């Protein structure tokens, strides 16, 4: 966990003029094609702001000045906190943070078997995230555990909230509302119980609303109404458009970007015009877009195109002065194999170098991230360590230029016993925790056969030894109380 983040922004896939072209094209779409909004409440917000509304068709045409006004009203970024407010991600500028995957119903377990996930898996994966040194944020395990199938969504969600907090004090990904107003209010209540009150929560937001527009160009009722709840409380909202090029969006990368941008910005307009001027909600401008693979009919998010779209989306967010969220570490592979390594590294590296503030989904597998792998959590952790090193780049000072040391050692000497060496070795060189650099003989000698075994061994070791910072007992009691109330409400109805 590195609260200050590592700086990206070295990679630019769009020029300034191209960014403007995308922006103007987006304004064109929002004004002339418009969006469908399945919520009277949200339509009213747009209506009062000055958009053209057709209530019957639930459609809104948003003029450019409203879009640009909403962009101006949006804060530059925000600090997403863990229950320990000292552990946070400053989502702004070129700072980059890495988050593990969460949400899938399956795990690839420590015996290499793919199966339905259990509560135990959920806890284990959050605990792993808590321990892994290069991971900043817990994507938080799984969704839809075997033991809880059939339970109301809101109950599952609230229990996951507590389960996550018990196993990590890092910022968390799953503490998000998005499936309806009730759940949004539940999440805010739960988070207030942790932080103390709404004011403190606003200063140290540990929950955010998660909105995926439905491509093409639809805002669903539950999601946008949750966003309005968060907006009115001045709490962060993530809009993450999920365009699949050639299916739910145009085939061209530029076209995907325009539609993604239009969907995200339509949400931003609703959020900022719903909010009160005293408490503007910070926005996380997200991208979960890629292409559809037309042969297998699955979303390809480990594709080079997805890498480009994510990098471009981050550039759009920066152009608007908003925090960005992108997808990195994605793979369509079913096991942590060579394909998984290549695809994950490519998408992680692209988003990291683009300067995406929050990079989501390390440790996942399969199209649509349908499973999570213990091994890949550990493998991606090393990969992120390497990427961090690359992003750190060169530090040029007299001391690092090392002229004095080069002179001292002279031709034919060696640097192994120099103080300079000991001083800088861990600062300048990243040492992978499990990637194997032994020579052939040692590799044979230690029976290291393959990296998956090393990853499994480290995962097991962490799960045996790691103790997350315990959750305050009173806070836990308060959360239990709120969860009880939610259970009573939901199970009655």
């Amino acid at each position, binding site marked *: 966990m590195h609260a200050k983040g590592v700086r990206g922004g070295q990679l630019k896939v769009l020029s300034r003029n191209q960014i403007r072209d995308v922006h103007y094209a987006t304004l064109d779409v929002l004004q002339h094609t418009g969006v469908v909004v399945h919520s009277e409440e949200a339509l009213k917000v747009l209506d009062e702001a000055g958009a053209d509304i057709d209530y019957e068709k639930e459609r809104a045409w948003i003029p450019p000045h409203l879009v640009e006004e909403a962009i101006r009203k949006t804060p530059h970024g925000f600090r997403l906190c863990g229950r320990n407010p000292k552990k946070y991600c400053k989502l702004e500028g070129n700072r980059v943070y890495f988050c593990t995957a969460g949400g899938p119903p399956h795990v690839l377990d420590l015996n290499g078997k793919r199966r339905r996930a259990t509560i135990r898996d959920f806890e284990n994966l959050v605990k792993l995230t808590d321990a892994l040194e290069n991971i900043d944020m817990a994507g938080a395990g799984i969704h839809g555990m075997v033991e809880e199938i059939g339970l109301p969504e809101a109950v599952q969600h609230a229990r996951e909230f507590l389960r996550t907090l018990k196993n990590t004090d890092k910022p968390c990904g799953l503490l998000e509302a998005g499936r309806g107003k009730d759940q949004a209010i539940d999440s805010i209540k739960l988070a207030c119980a942790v932080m103390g009150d709404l004011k403190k929560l606003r200063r140290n937001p540990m929950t955010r609303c998660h909105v995926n527009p439905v491509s093409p160009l639809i805002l669903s009722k539950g999601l946008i109404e949750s966003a309005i709840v968060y907006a009115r409380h001045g709490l962060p909202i993530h809009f993450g458009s999920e365009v699949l090029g050639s299916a739910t969006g145009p085939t061209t990368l530029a076209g995907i970007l325009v539609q993604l941008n239009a969907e995200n910005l339509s949400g931003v307009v609703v959020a900022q015009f719903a909010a009160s001027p005293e408490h503007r909600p910070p926005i996380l401008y997200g991208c979960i877009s890629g292409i559809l693979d037309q042969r297998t009919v699955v979303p390809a998010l480990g594709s080079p195109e997805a890498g480009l779209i994510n990098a471009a989306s981050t550039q759009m967010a920066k152009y608007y002065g908003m925090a960005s969220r992108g997808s990195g570490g994605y793979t369509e592979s079913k096991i942590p194999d060579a394909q998984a390594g290549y695809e994950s590294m490519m998408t992680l590296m692209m988003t990291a170098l683009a300067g995406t503030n929050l990079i989501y989904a390390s440790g996942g597998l399969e199209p649509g991230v349908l499973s999570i792998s213990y091994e890949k959590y550990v493998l991606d952790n090393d990969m992120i360590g390497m990427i961090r090193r690359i992003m750190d780049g060169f530090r040029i000072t007299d001391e690092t230029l090392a002229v004095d040391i080069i002179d001292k050692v002279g031709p*034919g000497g*060696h640097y*192994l*016993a*120099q103080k300079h*060496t*000991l001083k800088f*070795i861990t600062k300048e060189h990243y040492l992978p925790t499990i990637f194997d650099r032994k*020579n052939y*003989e*040692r590799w044979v000698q230690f029976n290291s056969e393959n990296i998956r075994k090393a990853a499994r061994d480290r995962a097991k070791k962490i799960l045996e030894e790691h103790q997350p910072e315990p959750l305050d007992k009173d806070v836990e009691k308060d959360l239990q109380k709120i969860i009880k109330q939610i259970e009573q409400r939901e199970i009655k109805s």
Partner: protein
Amino acid sequence: MEKKFQQKLVKAGILVIKKKEILNMLRECIVNLNIEEIKQTCQDALAVGIPPVKAITEGMAEGMNIVGERYEAGEYFLSELIVAGEVMKEGMKVLEPHLKKAEIKKLGKVVLATVKGDIHDIGKNIVATLLDAAGFEVIDLGVDVSAQQFLDKVREVGADVLGLSALLTTTLLYQETVIHNLQEAGLRDQVKVIVGGVPAGPEWAEEIGADAYAENATEAVAVVKQLVGA
């Protein structure tokens, strides 16, 4: 009388504790690569009456063992291993003049060098440092050393062990030449030969009739100890 006796005991007690403490400090100096304090700590050891041999075997050498283990376990870097050897050398400068002649007896004489055609010596130097720290008399002939030079030195000093280093696949072959020449000269039975270097390996050592191969410097020390029966 009784009081005096007690005082004596206390005094003796303090002395025991202090000696133990200093031995610990010697060990810690090595483990923590504390080159600034090793000399003073060695002097302290002599001042409280620790025999210099004990200061080495129960102090610094134990530190070296710990460093070696940590290096093997991947906890210490190569640089730390080498610096530890140098710290030990510094300490030896203080202790050595106080060793009795009989105590100076080394574990054995090792002649080593990088073979002809090759000027890579980092690995060989590390092995030399660690052998020295382990108590061997090390005669380092440097780099680009011919078979004849090896033979002359082995004969001159009566070496127990001959170490041949090579980094290049092309110069590796010269290790065989040296062994061949040793045989021709009738010296092969008098000296154990150990080979090392990136392209070498246990199979290679066997193929050319060497006595041993070591994969890295800490292993080399263990292997050379075995060769001389120490």
